[in-house]
């Protein structure tokens, strides 16, 4: 398969225009670290953003950064750190889970709406993404949004691009709102809770006025090994005060330890990257989003039907589930649970063959699919951009 690596936006536009003329199906990527996610699509050539690199604007006082889409995420993260700032949505690194190599790009973070545990407080990538430039399937360069955080001028195509997995356009430049890095990060750790009590504890913490920025529960085969984590960030005085208040609030769930420094960073990184489920590389991995308090019931239903490991991120708003890579990989049980309890599931890790025959994304009602097809056609009438990556025909 040929590899097309445009040197700039205009080049990308002519490549796509030509591909449209010839009916060449394009597989869009950055550096390919997440090539094994989504539905496998049959394409004729790869269109890579690898050469579209460089930070194009960074104004720390305005809390805004723009970069070409192929810029390594690490470059953006390091540049921000140099000024004491960060991407507030704490993007997950999929490499450990997928076993892939190379540098994830900032464009893929936008295209796949990749977020992490701070999501409960700061929102997902889509909440921080304020501007995009992209080439649509007609080979036209389009811009939406901009570099200011409040903007209601016209339709918000920025949101539409976030999480569209390259099916609507080839991103060339993205602009994110950023936030200061907190002076201090501290984590309350409660041991030995079952899933139900853990989620109750997390809900209590999240319902407090203390601005919790991370909430997770890592179950263990012996309940004593289970860990429930609540993260606080901010100025030191404030973190101290809030730790005390939260300890008092959560007393009924047991004594809480305080984690700081490297150990605490490592544990949040493992929550962010789902490395908790990384060990068994032969397992399928699902990412399930549901109302926080419904997580334990959802897990109980799934675990009754298939052998499963799991953990909770975002106060139970997100459940990561590993299942045996055989049969339907637990799809039936998981989808039945999301239908009944509300929510949706994405098959994150599975062999190509399984991702071809099973729904990778939650199936949508026909009326929503009709809109989805219409939107796809309005951006990419010839259907040449990442065909079928999200849904059949999309």
């Amino acid at each position: 398969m040929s590899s097309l690596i445009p040197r700039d936006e205009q080049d990308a536009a002519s490549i796509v225009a030509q591909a449209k003329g010839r009916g060449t199906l394009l597989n869009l990527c950055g550096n390919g670290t997440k090539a094994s996610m989504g539905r496998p699509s049959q394409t004729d050539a790869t269109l890579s953003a690898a050469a579209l690199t460089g930070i194009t604007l960074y104004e720390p006082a305005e809390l805004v950064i723009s970069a070409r889409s192929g810029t390594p995420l690490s470059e953006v993260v390091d540049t921000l750190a140099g000024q004491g700032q960060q991407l507030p949505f704490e993007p997950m690194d999929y490499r450990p889970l997928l076993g892939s190599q190379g540098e994830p790009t900032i464009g893929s973070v936008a295209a796949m709406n990749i977020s992490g545990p701070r999501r409960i407080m700061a929102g997902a990538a889509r909440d921080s993404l304020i501007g995009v430039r992209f080439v649509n399937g007609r080979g036209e360069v389009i811009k939406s949004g901009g570099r200011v955080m409040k903007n209601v001028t016209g339709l918000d195509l920025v949101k539409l691009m976030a999480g569209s997995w390259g099916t609507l356009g080839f991103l060339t430049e993205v602009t994110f709102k950023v936030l200061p890095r907190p002076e201090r990060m501290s984590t309350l750790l409660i041991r030995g809770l079952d899933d139900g009590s853990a989620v109750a504890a997390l809900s209590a913490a999240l319902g407090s006025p203390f601005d919790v920025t991370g909430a997770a529960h890592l179950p263990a085969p012996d309940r004593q090994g289970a860990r429930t984590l609540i993260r606080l960030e901010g100025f030191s005085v404030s973190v101290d005060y809030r730790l005390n208040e939260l300890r008092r609030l959560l007393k009924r769930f047991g004594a809480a330890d305080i984690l700081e420094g490297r150990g605490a960073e490592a544990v949040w990184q493992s929550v962010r990257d789902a490395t908790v489920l990384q060990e068994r590389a032969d397992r399928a991995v699902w990412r399930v989003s549901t109302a926080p308090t419904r997580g334990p019931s959802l897990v109980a239903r799934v675990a009754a039907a298939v052998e499963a490991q799991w953990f909770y991120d975002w106060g139970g708003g997100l459940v990561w589930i590993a299942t045996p890579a055989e049969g339907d990989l637990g799809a039936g049980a998981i989808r039945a649970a999301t239908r009944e309890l509300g929510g949706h599931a994405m098959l994150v890790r599975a062999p190509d063959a399984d991702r071809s025959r099973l729904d990778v994304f939650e199936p949508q009602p026909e009326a929503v699919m009709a809109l989805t097809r219409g939107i796809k056609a309005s951006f990419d009438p010839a259907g040449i951009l990442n065909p079928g990556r999200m849904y059949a025909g999309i």
Partner: protein
Amino acid sequence: MSIAFPTPDEAVLSRRNEILAGLGRLVAPEALIVTEDERRAFETDGLTAYRQLPLAVVLPSSTEEVAAVLRFCRDQGVKVVPRGAGTSLSGGAIPQPDAIVLGVAKMNRVLEVDFENRVARVQSGITNLAISQAVAHEGFFYAPDPSSQLACTIAGNIAMNSGGAHCLKYGVTTNNLLGVTMVLLDGTVVELGGRHLDSPGYDLLGLVCGSEGQLGIVTEATVRILRAAEGARPALLGFERVEDAGACVAAIIAAGIIPVALEYMDRPAIRICEAFAHAGYPLDVEAMLIVEVEGSDAEIDDMLRRIVAIAEPFRPKTVKVSQSEAESAAIWKGRKSAFGATGRVADYICMDGTIPTGQLPHVLKRIDEIAKSYGLGVANVFHAGDGNLHPLVMFDTAKPGEMEKAEAAGEDILRLCVEVGGCLTGEHGVGIEKRDLMTCQFNAADLEQQMRVRGVFDPGWLLNPAKVFPLEGRVAA
């Protein structure tokens, strides 16, 4: 009038009786407003310089009724102008003679509050403030707080993706909306999102938010509710130079502090507000900041101490740190009365553009020059943290031609915002007011892509037409 409306569809006007009879079969008699006197209440919104009587007004009571009305209008080729409380400042809810107004104000109930999952499900005609009031007894609130929050509906907030003074910390509507029930023009009811934090497939919820009523009618919404901070207190800082105030804003943010509100007022605005509210504002400064932080008393003290220290190098002439609720209320009273107080001294139009905050001194200087070149005054009150400007261009309606001058000055100001890297509207929406300026922010390809997406939802352009996009610009999917 300088903003054009399309020529009404004679065929629709001539079938008025038939259309009214059809609508009458779909909703209760009291939900259909047909007399001229009663329709008059709906002839404009917050952009009162423009008025048009609608064909009729329909105020349904349920999602099913909305679906029936939309399906009927689609079949009959009748345009539909959605309306919440009619507080739009950009003419987003101004009717047209061949269109019906579909108001959601009767659907105003809280359907469910789920404190554990921190969400509320409401009908879309509920006012913004009523959501916060419904959850206040447990210490929760709904964060986006447009100035009109007492009156404006969540439907209108979703249509305009509204913000408010607190959005630097809490985001705007799109960041606080988890799901909607929306009726498409053909009567299909779709559920987008839910009470979980994100959704599969394309982010249709994000697309609908801010679409100014052109994609469908939202009848229910699921919103995030947040636990309120333990307390909040502002400090007031006055500066001799505009540049110092701007640099102080940048320094606060660079120090890692995201205040819950960061408001800027220039000299004319300070004088007007002080004369009205007697808030104790300094009259000898060029610019004033109100910086509010949240938390426990000790946290607030710590944060305000830091802010005062950060301001020091910029030689503030006034530093007033509120020590009590009464002092806080006084500081805010002046700011919150800005629009009303300005209305006492002059007629004005309130502009709404956004700029990169680094451009603040340059833009304020240029705004002043632009206003002067038309022989008009201007006062500036705005959210400094996010660069959302609200220049109040003052004029005298009694003097012929002054309003046109004010509109022209406003247009120049918005062009300036785009020129320096900002945008035409930060929170009021495009509506009819800024429709004809869209081409200065977007090129033809940008606009056509937006219009094609619009066309997917409403191929006949019947939903809130003549708004947002240039009149001649209609593009099908």
